[in-house]
């Protein structure tokens, strides 16, 4: 059993309490107009009034999650560049895509009061089936993502030596307390809470990474030595597979895996409900465009954080669970704890743990909005008032978090990781319906639905068939050969290609058959509308005119 580091633990707890207070205070932040926080625009989108700065912090905290901070360096430590460092090109090519697509989504959503991507698809194609497909995909893909944020908190607690109690309740009690507090302030303050907390979290995480990347390489013999150590460790042949564990520079055989992972993940990220929630909460069409140029700073930080995985190899960091088994996901928290004074390690670990709270809050809000708008309202209560919608959404956000908690406590962590892997493949299949719709009505709604179904089925089967090289378990990874070839690529990309082929072919056929195209509520001018244009103002007319921050 590990000793508990009292100082570091105290710092983490103090930070947690501070963030909890902020979370509740956020409800009063630039108050919620005459309806209070009793509409989805207010509770679920923070009043749609976030300016450039807050949006930068909110999206930064939303996209670069605690799990990313834990899993990327862990992958570098365990298998090297292909499964870890692709996160850098992924979060680089992401932003041109965001720049291109998200301003149009912002405009059309603000003209029509859309809160979710499924709202948009419904308005564009007039197809309840397609709307439902997009909404359910979003919810299902988000749930395990929330669960993984808990895994992030758990790794911090484990390294601190917390949770070694004999019974499961004591073991998971700190996690349960953290999540109950999170659920409570998300319920009262909505999106304002993570927006405010994100500022604290990001300042702490930048501080921690900056200090680590300046100080640690020198301490362990410089980058030359660190990469030398990484080459030795990753090049060592694994007894179970007869192959090296990984590589520092990917070989020619994994080139296609590397870039398809980066591209597929980049295309998928802004299809996730929590990313879209962050975009729609911004106050103008240009806020998101400006942020596309400013958010890459986070990618630089992520790159350095990834390299800490190699630093840990040179430092001889031992990422051990409380029972002594090796868990790569503990490597970065352990590195901080081993090499910094307790108080500073506490700040870094606290930043990672708080980093889990921001995306978890936004994700649960986004999933709740999808449920409320596209399942509760569209199917059961077409005449739900804004007040009822907000009420349902708040309750569902609690249910979603509770579900994630049960997921992590009751099931194996690998279940959450497998689901997250599948979620990434699935969410990309909503891309054609959402993105093509931003530019053209050429695609037929049933063709898009068929393409979605084909992509989901292929992706699921392909991911299931990947066997872990050591344990032979299913869902062993997200890379598989393109059928009929030897080229190893990200499964989501093949599923996506299949999706588009099906959608194009069926659209051609359905157009010849003159199948009913469905009603389009949107107009051309909607896609270029900005904050002060007619009708955009109407959506937010009861809200405070003063911008937040």
């Amino acid at each position: 059993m590990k000793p508990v580091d009292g100082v570091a633990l105290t710092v983490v707890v103090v930070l947690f309490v501070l963030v909890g207070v902020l979370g509740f205070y956020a409800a009063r932040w630039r108050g919620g107009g005459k309806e209070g926080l009793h509409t989805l625009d207010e509770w679920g989108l923070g009043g749609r009034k976030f300016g450039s700065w807050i949006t930068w912090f909110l999206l930064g905290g939303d996209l670069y999650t605690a799990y990313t901070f834990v899993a990327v360096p862990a992958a570098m430590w365990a298998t090297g560049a292909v499964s870890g460092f692709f996160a850098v090109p992924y979060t680089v090519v992401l932003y041109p895509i965001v720049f291109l697509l998200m301003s149009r989504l912002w405009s059309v959503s603000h003209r029509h009061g859309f809160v979710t991507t499924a709202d948009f698809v419904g308005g564009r194609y007039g197809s309840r089936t397609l709307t439902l497909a997009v909404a359910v995909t979003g919810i299902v893909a988000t749930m395990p993502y929330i669960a993984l944020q808990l895994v992030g908190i758990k790794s911090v607690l484990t390294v601190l030596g917390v949770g070694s109690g004999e019974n499961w309740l004591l073991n998971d009690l700190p996690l349960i307390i953290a999540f109950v507090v999170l659920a409570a302030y998300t319920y009262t303050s909505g999106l304002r809470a993570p927006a405010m907390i994100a500022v604290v979290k990001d300042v702490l995480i930048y501080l921690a990474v900056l200090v680590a990347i300046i100080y640690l390489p020198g301490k362990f013999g410089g980058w030359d030595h660190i990469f030398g150590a990484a080459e030795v460790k990753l090049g060592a042949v694994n007894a179970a597979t007869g192959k090296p564990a990984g590589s520092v520079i990917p070989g020619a055989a994994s080139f296609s895996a590397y870039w398809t992972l980066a591209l597929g993940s980049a295309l998928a990220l802004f299809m996730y409900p929590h990313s879209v929630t962050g975009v729609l909460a911004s106050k103008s069409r240009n806020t998101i465009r400006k942020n596309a140029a400013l958010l890459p700073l986070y990618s630089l930080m992520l790159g350095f954080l990834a390299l800490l995985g190699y630093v840990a190899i040179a430092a001889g960091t031992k990422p051990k669970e409380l029972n002594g088994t090796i868990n790569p996901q503990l490597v970065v928290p352990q590195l901080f704890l081993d090499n910094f004074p307790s108080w500073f390690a506490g700040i870094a670990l606290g930043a990672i743990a708080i980093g889990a709270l921001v995306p978890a809050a936004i994700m649960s809000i986004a999933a709740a909005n999808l449920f409320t708008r596209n399942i509760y309202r569209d199917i059961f209560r077409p005449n739900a008032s804004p007040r009822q919608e907000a009420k349902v959404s708040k309750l569902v956000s609690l249910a979603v978090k509770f579900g994630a908690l049960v997921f992590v406590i009751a099931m194996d962590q690998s279940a959450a990781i497998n689901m997250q892997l599948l979620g990434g493949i699935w969410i990309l299949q909503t891309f054609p319906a959402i993105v093509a719709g931003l530019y053209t009505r050429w695609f037929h709604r049933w063709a898009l639905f068929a393409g979605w179904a084909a992509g989901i089925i292929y992706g699921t089967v392909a991911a299931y068939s990947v066997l872990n090289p050591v344990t032979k378990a299913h869902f062993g990874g997200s890379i598989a050969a393109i059928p009929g070839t030897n080229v190893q690529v990200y499964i989501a990309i093949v599923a996506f290609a299949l999706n588009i082929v099906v959608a194009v072919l069926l659209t051609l056929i359905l157009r010849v058959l003159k199948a009913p195209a469905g009603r389009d509520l949107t107009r051309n001018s909607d896609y270029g509308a900005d904050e002060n244009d007619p009708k955009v103002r109407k959506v937010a007319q009861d809200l405070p005119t003063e911008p937040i921050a």
Partner: protein
Amino acid sequence: MASTQLPPDIPTRGPAKPGPYVISGLLLAIAVVFPLLVPMYARSTPRLGGLPFFYWYQMLWVPIDAALIGVCYALMSREDRRRRQILRHPDPGTSDDGGPRDNAADDGSDSGSDSGAAEGGEAR
């Protein structure tokens, strides 16, 4: 909301000039394609401060992408302003001239209370 007939579409922007869109499209394409050309950078030399080429090259694309997108942002927001201006002052002679107020609000409609006041009654 009336469900039978949509109201006529009132454009909020004038016609686009292709120039800024083509240039931005090109810059964005560069920003997507180059970081993904793995064979170009999957090697360890030349090193930079001990970092293999593979690593520093990819991280170098972070600021490059930010700069490219920054240029696109400048181009697009200028073109966007021009297109909105045309609707307000349909006279082609003055349309290209944003006027001192618009230049002052240069970094975006983020601070847009002034353009809102201007747009109030004149949008159509």
